[in-house]
């Protein structure tokens, strides 16, 4: 697994645990359902815990747990499912989560700019990627009309 984080290539550093897979020492991520069920146990065993949200999960469920979570992963099942984009903004702008917000699964290079705009700062790929090519995806637009969860300045503030 390869990750692009803050414009750099990095190792994933996390193990994504399946539902029945026993927790192990080291950084692990689990589904939201498992997190809600096994919170204490997971925190006890793993060095750090991340939570994976599927598109149907409500991110508000994590509102009181953010101090215990080091990573939130948006698991995209279908790249056409735009709910992940709203999840990201709620996680950043409403819940105020400042840790790593990662996307994995079925997303397109052509969505990375939008994903970055809604607050995603890490992109996970199953195999090696051409880093330079992927980084270009963030530069395709230098103009943004609307404010989102990133630091790009919308043009109405500059006119």
């Amino acid at each position, binding site marked *: 697994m390869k990750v692009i984080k803050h414009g750099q290539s990095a190792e994933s550093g996390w193990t994504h645990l399946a539902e029945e897979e026993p927790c192990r020492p080291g950084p692990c991520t689990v589904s939201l359902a498992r997190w809600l069920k096994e919170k204490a146990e997971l925190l006890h065993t793993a060095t750090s815990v991340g939570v994976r949200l599927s598109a149907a999960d409500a991110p508000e469920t994590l509102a009181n747990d953010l101090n215990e979570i080091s990573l939130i992963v948006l698991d995209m099942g279908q*790249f*056409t*499912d*735009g*709910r992940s*984009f*709203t999840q990201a*903004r709620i996680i950043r702008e*409403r819940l105020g989560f400042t840790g790593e917000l990662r996307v994995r699964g079925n997303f*397109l290079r*052509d*969505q990375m*700019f*939008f*994903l970055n*705009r*809604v607050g995603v700062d890490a992109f996970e790929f199953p195999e090696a990627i051409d880093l330079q090519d992927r980084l270009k995806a963030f530069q*395709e*637009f*230098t*103009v*943004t*009309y*609307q*404010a*989102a969860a990133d630091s790009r300045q*919308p*043009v*109405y*503030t*500059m*006119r």
Partner: protein
Amino acid sequence: MRSDGEVGKTLAIGRPWTRDIFCTRHDRSILAGRELSFDGRNLGQMYQYDHYDQTLVDERAAQFREQTRRFLAGELSEDQFRPLRLMNGLYIQRHAPMLRIAIPYGLLSSRQMRMLADIARKYDKGYGHFTTRQNIQFNWPRLEEVPDILEALASVEMHAIQTSGNCIRNTTSDHLAGVALDELEDPRPYCEIIRQWSTLHPEFSFLPRKFKIAVSGSQRDRAATQVHDIGLQLIRNERGETGFEVLVGGGLGRTPIIGAVIRPFLEKTDLLSYLEAILRVYNRFGRRDNKYKARVKILVKETGPERFAEMVEAEWLKIRDSMILDEREIFRVQAFFQPHDYEQLPAKDESLEQHLLSDAEFAAWYRRNTAPHKIPGYRAVFLSLKPHGTPPGDMSENQMDTVADLMDDYSFGEIRVTHTQNLVMADVRHDQLFAVWGKLKPLALATPNVGTATDMITCPGLDFCSLANAVSIPIANGIQALFDCYDYLYDLGDIRINISGCMNGCGHHTVGHIGILGVDKKGEEWYQITLGGSSSNDASLGERLGPSVPRNEVPMVMERIFLTYRDLREGEESFLETVRRVGIQPFQERVYESH
């Protein structure tokens, strides 16, 4: 629009009169970051790109060039390329790709019209097709050449962004905006503000389904706001402030529904935060399991408008204060839509009166194809794209070029596309109407039928569209052939006939006074007829007349419907009024008597 406070929140701004007094024309030009042209001619009453807007459309064209290259090189699959090309207006159709180009709220400059002519010549078979969403489609471009087309469009401040796909589409409006007598306030500045907010919106580019917004600023709704995902109607509250009435969940297609008011009055400063709240609720909770149930109208229907409104209001309260539409931004955009440099003219022009008396053909055209203007001495001129026997809404490159010249010579270099697939030169002087008519006639753009039974809304149908079950254009032409004399047409008065080649309803059949829907019956084309629909203020869905009829009987059925109306009408009653008074039964009896 700013995010840093309450600026302008409580000011009552944008009253219709404010725009006339808030600055001089010279100031306005500076305000809008534009200059008058060398000859001092008005550059137009429309939004002009600054370098930000221009950069964005240039970057979009470059991005699509690269995406097309990756697709052709096999780096993107069909499935992956589909949403990317759709968000640039590109469909794969029956014969070839179809490219839909955005005409924001239907407004075009002569320079843009000439570019459309150029594109039709160079990349298509010499014509384009104007749509019910005030856009234009080309039916014969080659995929490899679409990036070149987008680049050409960008050079005249145009694009194809979000003209298709599950995203926020072109915002539509009143084709008489800015000149209508019954206008409270020009809706186009808000359309432009919405265009910018929705363009490449990072959160709302992968919605459950497409999303359409319409804005009207007049008493008479000419923008069909009640059958849009969001309809915004400018209104004045009891304190004299203008704001928006917000409707949600209207739409046509398989499940036609009239929109519900979820907020009776929205302050302008809250426009974008409220839209964002609606879109967010829809993006989160709209159905994604079935594309036929994915439009917001289904969510509104299933949750109920009251509950849906509560969800929107709850979301809105959380973002309202961080997303205020600053009055300065409203003023900035309004400055582009100032009234033209109109001449002071008498309300009555002698030469016009003379021509009306002496030339019956001109007088008929004047009555049907022109409309009153708020400035004395001017009228709005409709160019009928429905000459009998041709595909409704089509225009040739030659017509486009010549019309561009007419726009420059007679109407401040501008034209509007109507949602009924005609064009409007909105600012023609009374004393020039006869000359304009004389020039439109040889172009076949002066058919005096606007608003009549032969001015039909028609989707491309089976001739072009891969979704259609049945043809639409030949049906329209068959109905037109019933009218070999205009007296009969005029006697029937205002009738809206809408034709769709399938239940997706691109031809708006459900809101036609007469709706015609093509259905497939064991490989044969049959047509269902509805009566009594409307998309205006009195919006309603048509009622089904009875069993569908075969293709060759449609003209005969129409004839019987027309005759029934003629027999039953009282006084000056319009077709729709008669249908509403007597119901559909008398029409049923007449149509099916021999079946």
